[in-house]
């Protein structure tokens, strides 16, 4: 990591990815019985790892999550590959990630506040 990344930037990128993922999950669940619908997912982990690895200066606020179709999931007889169980699991994970990011952000702000208040 060449650049000292601001933790707030990392958390912000994470929160943006989580809200995008929440949208894709909602979309998948809404299309649970739509014939021929293929589920969509969000790619972020890999992109973040690449950004953190790269030797150049990367602006984490520009790391954008991407939507893609996994195409490896089991397809039902109507050509649809959404599994309610999987989506529920994704949502639980997403919620926990989101909570973690928010708590970290909260903690960070509290630290800054503490520094300001030192007399």
């Amino acid at each position, binding site marked *: *990591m060449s650049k000292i990344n601001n933790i707030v930037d990392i958390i912000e990128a994470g929160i943006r990815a989580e809200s995008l993922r929440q949208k894709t999950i909602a979309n998948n669940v809404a299309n649970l019985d739509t014939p021929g619908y293929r589920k969509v997912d969000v790619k972020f982990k890999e992109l973040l*790892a690449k950004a*953190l690895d790269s030797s150049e200066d990367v602006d984490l606020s520009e790391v954008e999550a991407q939507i893609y179709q996994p195409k490896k999931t089991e397809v039902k007889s109507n050509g649809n590959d959404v*599994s309610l169980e999987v989506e529920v*699991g994704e949502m*639980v*994970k997403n919620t*926990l990630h989101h909570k973690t990011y928010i708590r970290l952000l909260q903690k960070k702000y509290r630290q800054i506040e503490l520094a300001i208040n030192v007399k």
Partner: protein
Amino acid sequence: MEVNTGFGPIDIAISGLRAQDKNIKLISSNVANAQSTDNGNGEPYRRLEAVFKTDGDGIGGVSLDEIAPDMSDFMKILKPGHPDADEQGYVTMPNVNLPIEMMNLNAAARTYQANTAILKRYQEMVETTLELLK
């Protein structure tokens, strides 16, 4: 550098839910076809059974390995007027045993429930950890 976001137990519990969901599908197929004397190939419906296997070696989720037909004998009942009856008037019935299916359904539903319990409890555990950040 790897960004690890592992929530292992959640994926394992979800694999359990999916496996039991398919198991319940098989059981309902067995129950629905308990009286089907014709499967399209001149045989009555043959009972299906789910075979599960562990994903990966050691700690891992579960997946449906195969759907195995139950090769036990068909039951014959006397019903001379039935279109599928043989010369002696016997009709070959499916090898589905309803009480056994009900028992399997109970077991499958309980396993499904247990997996949701794991999911919920793990979620609570992570939330407890997050309390430390408060």
